[in-house]
């Protein structure tokens, strides 16, 4: 396996509407689950599957992403051979502002794809969270002699949320018969995970072909257009899958981690790696009350925390109450504050005695560095 497949991760996904969470950072670098960034899951999955050459394509605001993944050390991707390659936008005189879809992003990564030796490539969005080993999918890809294998899971998605999904129809042999890109009504429960396996050289050909014809979109211009010409198969994944593509789904994913069942599914197989911070263990005060919460290292809790996710270094002062909330790194909730159904970005301070209430379906979001 190690020599046979490389990985490409898109640090952005234009369909994901994350509001201010991605104002100053890539989608891939959005903090999630107490100590992680969105990209940690797919990157760890690749490494756990024996992939040791990963290109991460970036488009804008990638400073925090670079800071997070650095040389790839936490994922053991700081290698002499292969390793981690950050692929910033390929800007030349003739292609400024020409990036209109995944094809253009991959075109920018052609250098990486061409010089690589691996036979296969796994192309993935960063924001489909799962703990998946890709080895069986690659084996199936080889076994079925497929040109492209699309990874999908079976999920009953409400019609209102279909506009961001790609649905697949398959025949009994798992061959894809139809693809519905951002449909308005339900065509199938097979939901594409925005990950596909393809022979590296074929990918290069297809990208060059698309670019030569002014085509930009992977799903339409590579998959659908070639549905009859190429052998495109589906591979069903049965584990925990959560797509982070909006503030509500972001909030829901964090809250899903409060369930033991979900945590077991997401964390018990392969290790999920992230940048280490060497914070001290979380400190619980003498009068704190903490229930049903996920707490990262470096937190100091002196007040009440319920049904919440606290990232590293969060401080909840005496008499403060945090419920149903996602609080990111180093936020400071001062004495006697009360917050419910909020998302605090990094370094938010809420001063003594203030109250902030959101709704479970519509949490209040406070941006980085804001002092309330």
């Amino acid at each position, binding site marked *: 396996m190690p020599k046979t497949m490389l990985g490409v991760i898109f640090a952005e996904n234009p369909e994901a509407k994350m509001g201010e969470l991605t104002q100053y950072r890539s989608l891939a670098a959005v903090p999630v689950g107490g100590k992680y960034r969105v990209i940690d899951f797919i990157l760890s999955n690749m490494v756990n599957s024996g992939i040791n050459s990963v290109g991460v394509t970036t488009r804008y605001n990638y400073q925090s992403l670079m800071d997070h993944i650095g040389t790839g050390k936490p994922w053991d991707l700081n290698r002499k051979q292969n390793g981690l390659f950050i692929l910033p936008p390929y800007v030349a005189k003739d292609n400024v502002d020409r990036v209109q879809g995944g094809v253009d992003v991959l075109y920018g990564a052609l250098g990486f794809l061409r010089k690589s030796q691996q036979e296969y490539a796994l192309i993935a969005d960063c924001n489909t969270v799962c703990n998946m080993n890709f080895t069986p999918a690659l084996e199936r890809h080889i076994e079925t002699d497929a040109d492209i294998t699309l990874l999908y899971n079976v999920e009953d998605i409400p019609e209102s949320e279909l506009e961001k999904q790609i649905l697949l129809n398959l025949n009994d042999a798992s061959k894809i018969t139809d693809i519905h890109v951002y449909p308005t009504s339900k065509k199938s429960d097979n939901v594409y995970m925005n990950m596909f396996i393809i022979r590296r050289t074929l990918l290069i050909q297809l990208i060059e072909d698309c670019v030569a014809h002014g085509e930009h979109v992977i799903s339409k211009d590579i998959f659908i257009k070639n549905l009859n010409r190429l052998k495109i198969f589906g591979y069903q994944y049965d584990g925990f899958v959560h797509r982070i593509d909006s503030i509500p789904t972001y909030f829901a994913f964090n809250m899903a981690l409060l369930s033991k069942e979900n945590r077991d599914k997401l964390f018990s197989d392969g290790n999920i790696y992230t940048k280490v911070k060497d914070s*001290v263990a979380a*400190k*619980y005060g003498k009068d704190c009350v903490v229930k049903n*919460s996920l707490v990262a*290292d470096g937190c100091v809790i002196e007040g009440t925390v319920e049904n919440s996710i*606290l990232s590293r270094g969060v401080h909840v002062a005496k008499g403060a109450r945090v419920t149903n909330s996602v609080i990111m790194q180093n936020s400071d909730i001062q004495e006697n504050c009360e917050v419910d159904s909020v998302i605090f970005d990094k370094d938010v301070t809420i001063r003594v005695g203030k109250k902030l209430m959101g709704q479970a379906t519509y949490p209040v979001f406070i941006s980085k560095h804001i002092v309330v």
Partner: protein
Amino acid sequence: MKSKECLAMILAGGQGSRLGILTNKVAKPAVPFGGKYRIIDFTLSNCVHSGIDTVGVLTQYQPLELNTYIGSGQAWDLDRNNGGVFVLPPFMTAIKGEWYKGTANAIFQNIPFVEQFSPKYVVILSGDHIYKMNYAKMLDAHKKSEADATIAVIEVPIDEASRFGIMNTDSELKITEFEEKPENPKSNLASMGVYIFTWDVLKRFLIADENNKNSDNDFGKNIIPEMLKSSKSLYAHRFDGYWKDVGTIQSLYEANMEILEDNAPIHLADNSWKVFSRNPIKQPHYICDTATVRNAYITDGCSIAGRVEHSIIFEGVIIEEGAVVKDSIIFPGARVCKGATLNRTIIGADTTIGEGAHIGASSGEDVMDDFLNTKICSHDISIVGEDLYIAPNVKIGKNAMVDRDVRESNVADIKSKAANTEDSTTSREGAQVYA
């Protein structure tokens, strides 16, 4: 090899036999501390923060876990192109091979290692103290006084001074006399086991010491007194921060409990002097609806459903519903099952405490005292070794050292084996090579 002005040698080969079962499988520097650390993290982090990027770690007793833990040194930023951290076990040469006979002999045997870097100064440290200290300041003092050796000292209460190596100095802190554990101490300046030597001077004394067949090859007992005898210039360097020798169960327990205090004497969360360690690859910890957590340190991978009070919980520990953990320290991966109670205990890594079991001080009268071991344990502290199984409803009292599985069925014959417990600790003590 590019030369280094100063390098550090950490003596990490001691067994720490007074820690009993806790150092059965690991060397003392690898014993967990403070929820996230191993004892040696403090010394290694001090080196890095003091600008020392070349560190030799001398190992001997049960080095496997320590070697694995240190690895390439990346956790402390000590994976360097030029320098870095080196684990130095005893080795064979064409002529002979031998164990490290004492602290001075350990450095003597590694003279070729030190010489590779042609340092002007060498810092000699032990890997078993909890403190945050800037060795660069001490090195400055060493250079300024043009000393041959500088020894870090800390003031201790005069009535405790007879437990330490005491430095008698003049008003300029020049050492006039060194007394190892004096009955009637003349000063309260205790050696912290932190030495800076001018290397060419130390090297001469190491060689002379090695040739002296009557020597114990020990820094405190031999090298320092010899240097004083030869009128070398030795200075004391005062350190006024927190420093703790965690060589006994009581002191290890106390040092852990001290970090839980409101004004903890050592500031672990200080970002300008972080204590680096190998961070576990585990998710943030989870506190359940049924849990009560008060005054505790808890870290990644834990799942808490019971009651935790005034305790330190290491990575991946599971505390089930109804369990009560009080005044205790639980090492990585242990599980405390439903309704079990722990009171003033240290529980070894990966050990399971069965449902309804009780360990530690208790008001109940039906407590087994089969594991009572007042030689290792005191102050009502009980310890349980690593990777053990304590069956449901087993009750073990205070000052106990549990060193084997306790299955309900064998409660009866534990009594007959109890005598062996004493024997085995004695023999381990005899095997100690240097501490």
